[in-house]
């Protein structure tokens, strides 16, 4: 399918999707991340993993919604004939119809591509705190008890907020969605505007193509 068809398909589907309030969406996501930070006791790596896991659950469902809406609205995207084609569909149809985002596909090789996200609706109100210092500040300003408990060795735990991948949920979504169409990929946030880079970049690498997943009882003898 040609590039212009894919872009047009994205616009069409975006028009048909029910809309939600952007601010509400951003704030809800922000609360989710804040809760994760509290639940996992400021363990940044674990939080990134959890965001990816949540995204995965969303992704496996999102893809069926995308494909079903395409079928019913007469948008024919056809099976992808190359990984670049897949990348275009993810960027121009996926991100466009669910989030209204414009994304570009760059650095395409046979097994990988990068997605550049220009506006990120999730992080419109977000700033990451400076690295170091204690955990969440209590109202009374003191963090000593919390710090001692977290630090273990008695000191306040240094938090590397720059390691937090705030929008890591996108990586999970892409991974989950592509796994449902038999592509095992790994995704990670290469550059993040919240950490000071000029653009959000998600790097997607194809690990393997999975065989059709029919159960044993359905296979021909």
């Amino acid at each position, binding site marked *: 399918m040609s590039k212009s068809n894919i872009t047009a398909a994205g616009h069409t589907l975006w028009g048909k999707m029910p809309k939600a309030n952007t601010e509400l969406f951003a704030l809800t996501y922000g609360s989710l991340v804040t809760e994760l930070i509290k639940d996992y006791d400021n363990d940044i790596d674990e939080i990134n993993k959890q965001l990816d896991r949540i995204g995965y659950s969303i992704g*496996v*469902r999102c*893809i*069926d*919604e995308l*494909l*079903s*809406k395409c*079928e*019913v609205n007469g948008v024919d995207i056809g*099976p992808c004939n190359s990984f670049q084609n897949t990348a275009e569909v993810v960027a121009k149809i996926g991100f466009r119809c669910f989030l209204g985002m414009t994304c570009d596909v760059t650095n395409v090789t046979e097994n990988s591509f990068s997605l550049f996200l220009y506006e990120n609706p999730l992080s419109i109100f977000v700033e990451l705190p400076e690295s170091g210092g204690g955990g969440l500040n209590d109202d009374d300003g003191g963090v000593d008890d919390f710090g001692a408990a977290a630090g273990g060795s008695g000191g306040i735990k240094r938090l590397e907020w720059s390691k937090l991948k705030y929008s890591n949920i996108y990586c999970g979504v892409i991974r989950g969605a592509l796994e*449902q*169409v*038999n592509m095992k990929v790994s995704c990670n946030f290469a550059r993040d505007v919240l950490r000071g880079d000029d653009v959000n970049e998600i790097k997607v690498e194809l690990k393997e193509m999975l065989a*059709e*997943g*029919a*159960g044993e009882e*359905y296979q021909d003898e």
Partner: protein
Amino acid sequence: QEQEEGDGLILCCFQTRTGVKFVITAKPGTRGLKKTLREIYVLYADCTLKDPFYELEMPIRCELFTQAIDDLMERIDPGGVSGRNGGGNDGIVKLR
């Protein structure tokens, strides 16, 4: 997308690119089964997948989904469905 007919029954199947198969049985002469299956796919995505209590691969027990399917069947064949397990357009099975 396949359709078989015989023995007083049409069997129509639609397989999605994610490996989900929708199968529908109907009285001979029923038309628009392909379109119906596509609409069922949309209902599956909107009702079942968005139900937080539904686990993938498990039998579907979502009230919203069954109600939406009943409404769809009613629109396609008003009065034709005499019961969930009888009548013109019969049960819908989802396989992986």
